[in-house]
């Protein structure tokens, strides 16, 4: 196998990796906010349930969670396996990352000075307006570095999809390396992850700069 056939075979895997990456962000960034707000709910029961959910998501390996989402329906309900490999992967990633993002949002919201809420309240802003106009924009700025870290971790975590034999770039690298007895696929995969993270860091830096108009 020539280098260029290797590269073009792996390009398909890179596309799948990007698919996991973007779909996970698309799902978990907003879901994390919902989880965060439920985590701060007035109702103790809701809070407790969400707390348990977050602690399980953070306290067990994502690899294990992916296996549970994929094989769980078979062992629990004897549903035939298969057909939901990709949905199981995306679901697993989204609910896992939503838990991490929820905690980041929460730390950002909790770090807001109470004076911001009080000033808004005296001026007659409703709770919703206070949150969306005053609090959230400032929270976004505060949590950006933490979100960047999480997104970079996600780039690398996409490789965990190999657990469910999904042919993203890491699985392909392993396969091709074994069949061709070559080290090159791993180098290609490494370079790919590195460039992807470089792009992430670049994009996040741009966003941070754009939010630097105030302090």
């Amino acid at each position, binding site marked *: 196998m020539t280098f260029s056939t290797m590269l073009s075979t792996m390009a398909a895997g890179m596309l799948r990796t990007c698919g996991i990456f973007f779909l996970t962000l698309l799902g978990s960034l907003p879901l994390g906010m919902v989880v965060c707000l439920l985590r701060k709910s007035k109702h103790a029961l809701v809070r407790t349930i969400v707390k348990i959910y977050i602690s399980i998501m953070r306290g067990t390996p994502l690899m294990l969670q992916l296996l549970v989402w994929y094989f769980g329906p078979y062992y629990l309900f004897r549903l035939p396996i298969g057909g939901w490999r990709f949905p199981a992967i995306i679901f697993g990633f989204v609910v896992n990352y939503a838990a991490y993002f929820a905690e980041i949002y929460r730390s950002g919201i909790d770090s807001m*000075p109470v*004076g*911001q809420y*009080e*000033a*808004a*309240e*005296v*001026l*007659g*802003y*409703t709770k919703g*307006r206070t949150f969306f*106009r*005053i609090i959230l*924009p*400032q929270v976004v*700025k505060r949590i950006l570095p933490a979100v960047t870290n999480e997104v970079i971790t996600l780039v690398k975590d996409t490789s965990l999809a190999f657990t469910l034999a999904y042919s993203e770039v890491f699985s392909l690298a392993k396969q091709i390396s074994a069949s061709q007895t070559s080290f090159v696929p791993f180098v290609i995969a490494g370079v790919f992850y590195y460039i992807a993270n470089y792009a992430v860091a670049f994009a996040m830096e741009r966003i941070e700069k754009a939010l630097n*108009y*105030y*302090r």
Partner: protein
Amino acid sequence: MILEMKNIQKSFGGVRVLRDISVCVDQGEVVSIIGPSGSGKSTLLRCATFLETVDSGEIRYEGEPAVTTDEYGNAHYAAPDALRALKRYYGLVFQQFNLFPHYTVLKNVTDAPLTVQKRDKAEVHGTAMELLRKMGLEDKASSYPYQLSGGQQQRVAIARALAMRPEILFFDEPTSALDPELTGEVLKVIKQLAVEKMTMVIVTHEMPFARAVSDRVVFMDGGVIVEQGDPEAVFGAPQQARTKQFLQTYQR
């Protein structure tokens, strides 16, 4: 009578911070509240502005009841909508300014009149620029709070409160967070508001200022009003031993 507070009681975890306080403020009146640290001055303002809830007592703005108390001594607040409507009567200037850092000076002043009061855009903009001019900040309209000195930030906060067209303006130690050389510029704008007959309640440790600007001075200690009256009377010839003692700590 713009503000009536009657028999206000407030405890924090069993500690009685306000014990049966009654204060009334008339149209155009400037009332200063003085007293030692921990005497309950901020708590009183926070109860008046609904940032804290009272345990019992009555609060009325322009005769409209915000809080009433039943025969068992339990406070009842008006419905949320009614309470929100009462916010149009008052504004509050904080010790720490609490400007919105992500908004320009102009937006800090115009945002609530536009989004909360839904007033006309051109009118609000005109009012805001007028207020900024009055505060000596017309050239700062497009600056962000972090670019301003503390004194300038506090004047923006005053403009922000005034833009809501309140009937009464509360100040909680408006100059305590400022460097001494910056307090003068803030006190000056408050004095100007007093000349224009803005109704104000000012918690302050600036005794000469309180004496000069107020129609009435209220001395609080231990959650009660110990003495109140004409500033010349309270500062010149205090009747209560505690007042004398407190004022002495400010003279050297």
